[in-house]
């Protein structure tokens, strides 16, 4: 190589290609004749590690270095020495004006992130470039060529753009809680970064073998495909890929073997689909989703498209999941809030040092305070010292052993009202298990306690009455059977006395043991003994209410009088009559029993139980005076008892 060709002495592959090429037929002519400006510039070009080329002459014919040789793709090495217009028909509309501006201004031109849609590997590619055009001034001062240096920044641009889009996506969907809004927002954003006329999001149901497109974006030139579609629509191969969650990339379905199955292309044509990309969306385990992009023309899908769809799909799933969780949380919160608000039970939460942090209306009602007056206070404020110590003890128990404690405490309301609460209390922890306080459900068992007390009293009282009645029955038995009478006779008398006692109890039970009226008592007692002889008995008097004990005594006394009358007195023959009258005189009740028309009365030689009963029972139990007059024409019994213990008001009212 001669000295004059030293400028070609380096430059790797391109250096040797230029050296070895036959330039004699080209407008360049043999290198020996190349002007100094070209030689110098080419020398720099071939020695530069930066992608560099020279557009020379009026036709802007190309000379370039190794670093630049990758830029035109398969157009290298044929591009060497060719005019720019021939090499770059795809981007000529962009670079031609830039060349022109250099010629016009005689100044260098540079650009950054210039979009150049290049046809490099059989399809249009979206590429970005930082480059400069620098005029090469010839020996006569005219522009003889343009030095171009630059590099592809597609990856940087796409990555940054993706990052920006994802950031915008995050911002856009963060405030959204409705799934449709999230999807619409995401798909609209995605449309600005993906060369597609239709973009959608579908959930794949592998059991039903369908894809449900919830939302779908189109630029208006393609129809929406929302709805549920069988995966078979896409043919067995593509359907299978969608099912297993693979990326489906169809640059041109008319030529792609994956769509060769009969019917698939027809179906695709029907929805205007020529080229498509389906990317599985990473999401919750167990469910599958996909995000897809459709184009009406053949399109080469790139990894960065896949990555963008994947990133979007992931975020959309996350946003949907978050939205669903938030909605569920809100619903759940609402539900629990409602339970909290409406519960009859008292519910409250407290810090670990027993300061109340929340309480429900039932708690407010029980304590007779507003929630604001309760929250922040210690539970010690609402109970006696002794009961507060018990809660401390229970808290320690929970801290030591965990679980729930169930205990009763006395609680004092704002008005000083004492309550018994049954408290069920549990330690509260956050999702990581850290102790954050305690919550308790309490029930006001004051009424239940009172009821239990009352019930205990009632049972005791019942026991007392039963025992007392048994003692009475014992007394009746002892009295009845000691008289030395015929056993059959005594037994009959005993039975009658038991029946009379039972009747008196029946009467009191009917009156709820609040007492009995004298009229009812006499009526009942007479009817039991004197069945069929009612018209021979006249009973009249005002309304007098007797207390229970007096009623039983009087009933037993009337029973004895009636029995005596039926056996020996006025009711023992067909004609006798009994007149019973009573009235209130001041604070005393007078009852007169008068028999007439019976057999001649003889004073009994000894006092039988009946007589003793009448005298004693009425005297003792009623504290009155009893006069029994065994007048020959008929027995008279005068009962004169004080009214205290009886219902004086009603007695007077009856007068």
């Amino acid at each position, binding site marked *: 190589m001669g000295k004059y060709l030293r400028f070609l002495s380096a430059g790797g592959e391109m250096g040797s290609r230029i050296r070895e090429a036959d330039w004699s037929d080209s407008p360049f002519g043999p290198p020996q004749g190349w002007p100094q400006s070209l030689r110098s510039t080419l020398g720099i070009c071939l020695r530069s590690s930066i992608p560099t080329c020279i557009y020379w002459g009026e036709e802007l014919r190309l000379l370039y270095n190794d670093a630049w040789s990758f830029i035109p793709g398969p157009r290298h090495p044929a591009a060497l020495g060719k005019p720019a217009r021939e090499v770059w028909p795809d981007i000529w509309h962009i670079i031609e004006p830039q060349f022109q501006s250099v010629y016009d201004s005689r100044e260098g031109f540079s650009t950054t992130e210039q979009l150049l849609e290049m046809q490099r590997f059989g399809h249009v590619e979206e590429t970005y470039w930082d480059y400069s055009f620098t005029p090469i001034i010839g020996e006569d001062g005219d522009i003889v060529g343009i030095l171009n240096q630059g590099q592809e920044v597609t990856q940087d641009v796409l990555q940054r753009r993706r990052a920006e889009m994802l950031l915008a996506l995050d911002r856009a969907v963060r405030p959204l809680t409705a799934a449709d809004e999230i999807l619409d927002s995401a798909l609209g954003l995605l449309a600005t970064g993906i060369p597609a006329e239709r973009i959608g999001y579908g959930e794949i149901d592998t059991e039903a073998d369908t894809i449900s497109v919830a939302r779908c974006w189109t630029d208006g030139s393609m129809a929406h495909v929302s709805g549920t579609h069988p995966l078979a629509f896409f043919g067995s191969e593509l359907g299978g890929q969608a099912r297993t969650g693979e990326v489906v990339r169809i640059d041109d379905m008319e030529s792609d073997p994956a769509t060769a199955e009969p019917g698939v292309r027809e179906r695709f044509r029907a929805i205007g689909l020529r080229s498509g990309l389906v990317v599985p969306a990473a999401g919750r385990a167990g469910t599958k989703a996909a995000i897809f992009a459709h184009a009406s023309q053949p399109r080469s899908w790139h990894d960065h498209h896949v990555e963008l769809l994947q990133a979007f799909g992931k975020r959309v799933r996350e946003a949907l999941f978050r939205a669903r969780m938030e909605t569920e949380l809100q619903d759940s919160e609402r539900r629990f809030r409602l339970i909290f608000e409406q519960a009859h039970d008292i519910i409250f939460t407290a810090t670990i040092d027993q300061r109340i942090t929340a309480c429900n209306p039932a708690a407010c009602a029980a304590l007779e305070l507003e929630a604001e007056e309760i929250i922040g206070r210690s539970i010690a404020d609402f109970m006696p010292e002794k009961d507060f110590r018990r809660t401390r003890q229970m808290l320690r128990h929970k801290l030591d052993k965990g679980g729930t404690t169930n205990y009763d405490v006395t609680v004092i309301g704002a008005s000083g009202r004492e309550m018994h609460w049954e408290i069920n209390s549990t330690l509260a922890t956050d999702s990581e298990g850290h102790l954050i306080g305690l919550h308790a459900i309490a029930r006001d068992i004051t009424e239940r306690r009172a009821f239990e007390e009352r019930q205990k009293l009632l049972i005791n009282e019942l026991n007392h009455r039963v*025992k007392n009645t048994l*003692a*009475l029955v014992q007394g009746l038995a002892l*009295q009845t059977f000691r008289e030395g009478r015929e056993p059959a006779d005594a037994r009959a008398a005993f039975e009658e006395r038991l029946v009379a006692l039972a009747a008196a109890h029946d009467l009191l039970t009917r009156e709820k043991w609040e007492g009995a009226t004298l009229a009812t008592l006499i009526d009942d007692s007479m009817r039991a003994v004197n069945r069929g002889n009612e018209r021979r008995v006249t009973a009249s008097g005002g309304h007098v209410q007797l207390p229970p*004990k007096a009623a039983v005594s009087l009933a037993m006394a009337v029973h004895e009088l009636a029995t005596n009358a039926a056996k020996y007195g006025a009711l023992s023959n067909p004609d006798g009559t009994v007149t019973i009258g009573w009235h209130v005189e001041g604070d005393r009740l007078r009852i007169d029993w008068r028999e007439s028309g019976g057999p001649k009365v003889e004073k009994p030689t000894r006092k039988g139980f009946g007589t003793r*009963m009448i005298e004693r029972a009425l005297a*003792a139990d009623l504290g009155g005076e009893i006069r029994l007059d065994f007048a020959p024409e008929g027995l008279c019994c005068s009962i004169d008892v004080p009214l205290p213990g009886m219902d004086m008001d009603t007695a007077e009212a009856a007068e």
Partner: protein
Amino acid sequence: MSGAKFLVVEDEAIIAMSTEDMLIALGHDPAFTAENLERALEIVAAGGFDAALLDINLNGVESGPVADALAERGIPLIFTTGYGEIRVPEGHQAATVLEKPYTARDLENAIAGLGL
């Protein structure tokens, strides 16, 4: 001691009567009977008996004052009660309690315990 004089304090006449009969059958004398607190206190104040049978509950009133009056005079007593849960008046926990209904034998044993 046979033939002791008794005060029977009982608000239920029929029960009082059978208690009296039981006492007579056991060879004692039911000399006095009271059906309420006031009457019982009058009789205790007057004296003239050796021992008392005292119903704890007289028409809803506890008979403690009668028991106190008896104790003051050193007169032994036996409580009777219809209540299962026995609430003996304060200061008289040592006294025998007969639960109603009681038998003549129960009464006999209780009297024997008085050491008359």
